[in-house]
């Protein structure tokens, strides 16, 4: 391959990965802009427009055939476009929700938007990775940005503590992930996912331990039990709209990458038992501990752990049906969680980013802020999996394939723990609507102003949640990613 050919193929790659490249470049532009014009008003708009552009671009390419770019390092089109659209979408909604929030806590700084763009870049690299190298690079780019975003309010003791815990444990888990990558590489001699299964040869032990350690890295990122313990502490201390971002986009990216690894590199069934057991633990522990939480953000953190468990059930099915169900669930989960964290962010009044605010202090808020509270009704019912909202279809989409693959026991546990979850989700609504407002907490004196853009985002999430519940064609879209063409398009 001579140099000219390399450059021309590079040009073509840049075009097909334009949203990724643009996101990264605009992140740099914001950094430079911020150096000369501190906290310029246009900064959030640049970020929002970049993400919106990426979203539109990727949505138009969901129907396209999947392919690869940069010498097979990244995947484009099809499933990759869907995952990217998810990441861009949650980034866009987060930017809109975060701007007024950060202004209100006095941390409206340009870096945030640059970091969100960089984190999105990392997530896209991770979520569309076709090689272990890109997995590692994307994983770390994303993680480092998220550590900084967590500790954004660096004068706040809680925020720095969250950042420290996230950072130490994240780096620790990266060690395992990297060791796993090294062992898989050693066993197969390749970093490309699709070449692995044929190249394993007689290094089974090395390969299996590599896969195990790689799984640990991913399971840490999606906060599966027992790698979940950072989640509540980090979510409690981080700025609330950014928690919505972390809990959705980073999880989407990690799950998408995990699905690619499982689908392309590991079709054999040795890992199914591991994922099934982890899914079981995650659903049970996440839902049970959530019952005892009094802080809203902490409760939602355990809820997001539990939802990772549901998605893992779809993965444990080990079938294209299960993977497509999991991808669909990620979309529903993104909509619900961004909405729920958005509402909580808008209802914060204690000035500590909600890290100390108890659920009971929001008693009777439903009558003061009907729009937010009624939106919360939809999110809570959606998270609990009530029909006809998207959450219900999502659960059907992940539990159904598990039953088809003979994991009926896992699906039963999933349904039972969903029933448990209804308790803590509905308790939010009980507190919102059926309790007298708490006289000790003078919420009456505190003005919650709801910015129009934020309200629009919340309402959009509600509408999407309903649409996802009654228009099941989205499930066909995710199913179409696994119709056999995916491997065929590889070189």
């Amino acid at each position, binding site marked *: 391959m001579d140099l000219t050919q390399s450059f021309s193929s590079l040009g073509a790659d840049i075009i097909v990965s334009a949203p990724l490249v643009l996101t990264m470049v605009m992140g740099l532009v914001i950094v430079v802009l911020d150096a000369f014009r501190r906290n310029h008003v246009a900064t959030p708009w640049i970020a929002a427009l970049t993400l919106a552009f990426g979203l539109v671009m990727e949505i138009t390419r969901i129907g396209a055939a999947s392919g690869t770019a940069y010498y097979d390092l990244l995947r484009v089109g099809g499933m990759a476009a869907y995952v990217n659209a998810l990441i861009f979408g949650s980034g866009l909604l987060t930017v809109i929700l975060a701007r007024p929030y950060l202004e209100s806590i006095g941390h409206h700084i340009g870096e945030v938007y640059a970091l969100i763009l960089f984190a999105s870049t990392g997530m896209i690299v991770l979520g569309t990775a076709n090689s272990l190298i890109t997995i*590692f690079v994307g994983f770390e780019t994303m993680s*480092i940005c998220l550590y900084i975003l967590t500790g954004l309010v660096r004068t706040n003791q809680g925020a720095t503590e969250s950042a420290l815990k996230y950072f*130490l444990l994240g780096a620790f888990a990266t060690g395992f992930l990297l*060791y796993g990558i*090294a062992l898989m590489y050693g066993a197969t001699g390749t970093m490309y996912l699709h070449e692995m299964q044929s190249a394993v040869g007689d290094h089974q032990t090395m390969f299996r331990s590599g896969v195990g350690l790689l799984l640990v890295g991913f399971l840490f990122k999606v906060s599966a039990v027992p790698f979940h313990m950072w989640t509540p502490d980090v979510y409690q201390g981080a700025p609330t709209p950014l928690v919505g971002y972390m809990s959705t986009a980073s999880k989407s990216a990690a799950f998408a990458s995990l699905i690619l690894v499982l689908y392309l590199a590991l079709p054999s069934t040795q890992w199914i038992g591991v994922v099934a057991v982890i899914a079981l633990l995650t659903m049970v522990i996440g839902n049970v501990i959530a019952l005892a939480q009094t802080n809203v953000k902490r409760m939602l953190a355990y809820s997001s752990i539990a939802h990772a468990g549901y998605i893992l059930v779809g993965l444990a099915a080990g079938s294209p049906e299960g993977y497509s169900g999991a991808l669909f669930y990620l979309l529903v989960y993104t909509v619900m969680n961004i909405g729920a964290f958005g509402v909580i962010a808008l209802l914060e009044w204690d000035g500590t980013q909600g890290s100390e605010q108890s659920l009971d202090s929001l008693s009777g808020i439903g009558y003061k802020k009907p729009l937010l509270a009624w939106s919360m009704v939809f999110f809570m019912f959606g998270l609990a999996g009530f029909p006809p909202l998207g959450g219900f279809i999502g659960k059907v989409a992940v539990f159904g394939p598990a039953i088809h693959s003979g994991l009926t026991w896992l699906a039963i546990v999933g349904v039972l723990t969903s029933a448990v979850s209804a308790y803590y989700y509905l308790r939010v609504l009980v507190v919102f609507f059926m309790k007298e407002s708490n006289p000790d907490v003078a919420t009456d004196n505190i003005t919650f102003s709801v910015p129009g853009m934020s309200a629009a985002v919340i309402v959009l999430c509600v509408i999407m949640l309903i649409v996802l519940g009654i228009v099941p064609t989205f499930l066909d879209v995710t199913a179409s990613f696994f119709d056999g063409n995916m491997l065929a398009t590889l070189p």
Partner: protein
Amino acid sequence: MEVTLNWYLMLSAILFVIGVLGVLFRRNVIVIFMSVELMLNAVNLTLVALAQHMGDTTGQILVFFVISVAAAEAAVGLAIIIAIFRNQQTVDVTEINLFKY
């Protein structure tokens, strides 16, 4: 005695376990952080040894990425540790437990 691939792999595994134990049992945040770096470098050793053994450069390319990522991580990590120290005047992890239960 010839130094074979297994020697390298054993050495790096031992280094990795030392790193893990350091994370688990040391109390000073800085030392924990150094233990994490030790884990990463243990893996680097594995990667280089494997790449050399197979005559394939891909593993060594990943090592470059790991080194640069470790540098970025060090910058961010030290910044966080400084922020913690400013807030709490301590670097003992057992005392940093505001959020729990």
